[in-house]
């Protein structure tokens, strides 16, 4: 992933709670085996409605999505994150997020900014009145602000997530630096825990099952 330091742009208000990942990217889009091109599917069922906020020309260049509580709940599909980013969003601001969505976002560099509901509401009001309001999100300081209005809020960002965002680290690469620890762990854990070895033959047919049938 690319390092993310500061994100700056205008916002679009999506005043709905419980925006699940099925809404963000409907499952019909999940049949694709690529990682790109999901932007066209973003909120595709809602975008057919001409009054949907993403169809409002005032917000055509917005890159920060401001939404209601529990954004991104439901299905674990990372496609939701790919769709938001492919469409052009760099951050989502909401009072709370679905657990897996938040995790997935952190792997791709999509910022999830969690601030109090009252602050989300005032942010929505501000960008509803003036869609050109410039919003700045600073990863190092974990702040979201509108400099022109002197409006600024702090948000929670774990040190790990912040470091990964700032450095654009590859999680797998980081973990593999500790490969010897995994090997050591396996050397005792393997004695206890299941391995599929010997349960299925080359065709995936159960070997044990046939044995127990024979005994019965």
């Amino acid at each position: 992933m690319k390092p993310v330091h500061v994100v700056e742009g205008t916002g679009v208000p999506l005043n709905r709670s419980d925006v699940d990942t099925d809404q963000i990217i409907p499952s019909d889009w999940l049949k694709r085996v690529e990682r790109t091109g999901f932007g066209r599917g973003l909120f595709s069922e809602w975008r057919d409605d001409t009054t949907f906020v993403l169809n409002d020309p005032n917000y055509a260049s917005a890159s920060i999505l401001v939404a209601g509580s529990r954004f991104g709940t439901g299905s674990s599909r990372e496609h939701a994150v790919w769709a938001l980013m492919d469409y052009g969003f760099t951050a989502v601001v909401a009072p709370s997020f679905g657990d897996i969505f938040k995790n997935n976002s952190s792997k791709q560099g999509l910022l999830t900014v969690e601030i109090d509901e009252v602050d989300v509401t005032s942010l929505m009001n501000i960008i509803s009145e003036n869609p050109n309001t410039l919003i700045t999100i600073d990863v190092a300081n974990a702040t979201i602000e509108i400099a022109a209005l002197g409006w600024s809020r702090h948000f929670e960002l774990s040190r790990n997530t912040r470091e990964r965002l700032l450095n654009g680290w590859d999680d797998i690469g980081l973990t593999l630096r500790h490969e010897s620890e995994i090997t050591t762990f396996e050397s005792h854990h393997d004695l206890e825990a299941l391995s599929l070895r010997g349960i299925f033959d080359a065709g995936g047919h159960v070997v044990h099952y046939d044995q127990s049938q024979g005994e019965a």
Partner: protein
Amino acid sequence: MAGATLFEKIWKSHVVASSDDALTTLYVDLHLVHEVTSPQAFDGLRLNGRRVRRPDRTLATADHNVPTDALTAPIADPISRRQLEVLNENCQEFGITLFPRGHENQGIVHVIGPELGVSQPGMVIVCGDSHTSTHGAFGALAFGIGTSEVEHVLATQTVPQSKPRTMAVTLTGSAPAGVTAKDLVLGIIGRLGTGGGAGYVMEYRGPAISQLSMEGRMTLCNMSIEAGARAGLVGVDETTIDYLRGKPGVPQGPAFDEIAEKWRRLISDDDAVFDHEVVIDASQLVPLLTWGTNPAQVAEVSGVVPEPRDDADRRSLTYMQLTPGVRFSDIPVDVVFIGSCTNSRIEDLRAAADVAAGHHVAANVRALVVPGSHRVKKQAESEGLDLIFREAGFEWREPGCSMCLGMNPDQLSPGQRSASTSNRNFEGRQGRGGLTHLVSPAVAAATALAGTFALPKDAS
């Protein structure tokens, strides 16, 4: 010092490394893979020249895309077909055991893990699918992950995790007759809300849980994610052990008794302290359905469409084309779906067949029964359930995720209303413009017969 919760016991025994920050590198015992969330992960491995660290802890099946009509019919949708081919190619290239469409072990990933006995107590189990929480019914820590994490687990057999908090969901009393595991979990989600479990692993306990079969516990744990929880858990007891005995994936004979003795310790200690506790009196619960577009919007099957409490409720009512005060028993249903990782196991099919036996599906209803796996299908057929369903006018189909989500030909048309035993009533989840009501298998069957929402006793 206070005792440990079941979650803490499993977590502790899987820590490979913990940094000073809140992230722990957790070892994964079993990684389940399906066609939808894995292709981009395998691509990532190839791009970086990485291998699958433990193919012997990785198991794949095809479920989301598979059509549920005759196995001999080719897959018409070229994009679905391609996704299934890519899974085959990836499993071959990386040496992973795969149960493709039509294989005797194929089925919904959360049905086959348990029935093959590869989902076992004390394990950490992950899958690129939020309903991985299902396997928590076995006293395993099981949770859904995204595609980046799928790639991470393939490459390292570990997953970086922040430690969740623990919540005890205690169900006191006994569930009244006719109140199923589905009703319990809808009742719990209705109480907690869609975000009530956020950040928690929820352990279900109490007499009403002990009385549940493994199938019931799987239904319960399956929908933990709908309350926002990271995972659901039920401690090991004799029901767990009896279910697993003789399953292909577990040790056989005396070796089983040995491992069962270890598994029996996988319960929360009596003096364990949970971060949060919720107590629900199961004896007060009734058969429930969802009326809205999130799983916390629940009402009594025998009741009426509720008055909206806020804008979100009003939005849901509009989408669902419902008017407050109307009795559910007066609302016609177009489609009944019995299936999904929530309710497609043998016990679910028995419950539905019990209601359907000797009756006929109403003229306005299309009713589908989709067994969760080939093994479930075979078992059901050996019990004659397929005949009961067919004679009653239900379609008896091949295994797969089917109408739970709109990824295969089984879908609702715009404006069609369903009574569905699946897990999500999100807008368009079962097909664009579809109107989903979540119910138990017994209520689904009764509704199919009545043509409007109904309890089993009303149908007979």
